[in-house]
């Protein structure tokens, strides 16, 4: 299977669209960073809103850590799209080119075929995230410097000490890796039902967008199914940026307010990954290759 995995990775990284993904997301991030460098003050004022009537804030509010958080929130749609672009093409693209029938007539099992392709998709996903992390965190730190991180939640504001932020981003990106791999698994699963990669890509994005809209609505019917929707759990990376406080309401350094939520969400996402991949294996094994 290792040979097959290497072959799949080779094919992904020989395609132009793979590099276009990296360039595209890079351009997007840099444009936002430049925009914030020029107009960031206004964003801070807007973000602080009412609070600035009661409090004076001193320090570098617009710093690399804050900018990275803004970027990650903005990339909610873009990164999943780029993941779907590659994963959604993995089987449908082969069917379209006709290479699927030759691949599956080779002495490799269909299970190995699916696992090797998905593993390669996962590697691409993680590399894309490393790239996003490099640009949105490290380059932001370079351009904007670092300081405490100040964030607004619905009911309270959180200030995290500068020396308590970086490790949270490592955790957040690691979690994002699981979340984006779930997107990859979904697109990969849908890829087998089409001989054109556009279908699975659009279908994946539609599912994510629609489920995300359901997640944002507090309607009783949706509240019941929300805990099972993977989109509900994809945003749990933000929990890394909430701290516990002591009896005097002072931050406990190195703590996470709802660590159990992160674990719970990660497990739900992992279950989704296993389910999507298992379903793919099950259907591919039964599928007559007629393309």
């Amino acid at each position, binding site marked *: 299977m290792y040979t097959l995995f290497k072959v799949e990775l080779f094919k992904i990284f020989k395609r132009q669209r793979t590099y276009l993904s990296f360039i595209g997301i890079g351009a997007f991030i840099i444009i936002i960073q430049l925009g914030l460098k020029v107009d960031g003050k206004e964003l801070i004022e807007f973000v602080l809103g009412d609070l600035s009537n009661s409090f004076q804030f001193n320090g570098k509010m617009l710093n690399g850590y804050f900018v990275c958080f803004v970027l990650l929130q903005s990339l909610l749609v873009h990164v999943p799209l780029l993941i779907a672009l590659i994963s959604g093409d993995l089987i449908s693209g082969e069917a379209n080119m006709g290479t699927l029938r030759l691949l599956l007539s080779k002495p490799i099992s269909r299970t190995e075929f699916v696992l090797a392709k998905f593993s390669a998709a996962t590697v691409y996903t993680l590399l894309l995230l490393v790239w996003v992390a490099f640009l949105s965190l490290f380059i932001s730190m370079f351009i904007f410097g670092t300081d405490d991180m100040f964030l607004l939640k619905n009911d309270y504001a959180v*200030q995290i000490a500068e020396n308590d932020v970086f490790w949270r981003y490592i955790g957040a990106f690691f979690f994002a890796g699981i979340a984006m791999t779930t997107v990859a698994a979904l697109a990969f699963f849908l890829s087998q039902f089409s001989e054109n990669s556009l279908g699975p890509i659009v279908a994946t994005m539609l599912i994510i967008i629609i489920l995300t809209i359901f997640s944002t609505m507090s309607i009783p019917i949706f509240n019941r199914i929300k805990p099972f929707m993977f989109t509900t759990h994809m945003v749990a990376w933000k929990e890394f940026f909430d701290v516990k406080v002591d009896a005097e309401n002072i931050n406990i350094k190195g703590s996470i307010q709802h660590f159990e939520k992160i674990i719970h969400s990660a497990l739900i996402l992992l279950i989704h990954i296993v389910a999507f991949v298992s379903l793919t294996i099950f259907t591919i094994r039964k599928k007559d290759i007629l393309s």
Partner: protein
Amino acid sequence: MRHSTFFFILFFCLKATSAQSNDDLLKKVKTKLELVNDYIVDAKMRTNVAFIKAPIGSIKIYFKKPNLLKIVKEKGISILPKGGININTFSILGITDYTTIDAGESIINGIKTKVIKLLPLNENSDVVISTLYIDETTELIKKTSITTKENGSFEMEFTYGTFANIGLPDKMIFTFNVKDYKMPKGITLDFEDNLTKEEKAKLKNKKGKIEFIYSNYIINKGIANNMF
């Protein structure tokens, strides 16, 4: 008739006497404070506002007579209540035009204090009324309550140590009023309702507190005006 007149006169003399002792006490407090021309001090800030989770902050405070004050945060973000934080004992006692009112006594942290209210006579003064709780034995202000026009009411409570002889505290607790905080979900992009009932109730606390712990006083070494 003679009795009531007598008591009236006695009361008036006593009042005159107590008024004089208010001014005397304030003068003594002022005399102590006037030994300080300027100081620089490091302070650790512990913010206790219901809807703000903050780490312990570090600031540097610069002061120069009569009322120049600057708070500098070299690293990190500081969140300070607007207006009131710049008021200090020097600025209160620096007001020359005021009337004092004897408000009796009060126990602050187990210490008996004399309560004096100061009413600025200047109508344009931002301070509406200040209440000082003074320890007569040590001639130190233990607590102040101040009501301002622009920035509402707040309190300052002082604890002294090394520099009690010149009225510089080791610790100051600044208490103030806060408004409700709520951010729209469309801005925070947080669509989960995470809080328990108890947590939500806690957030309704309308009082905020910041505790300053002072250390490394540098006193009367001179500070350039351009620092402010």
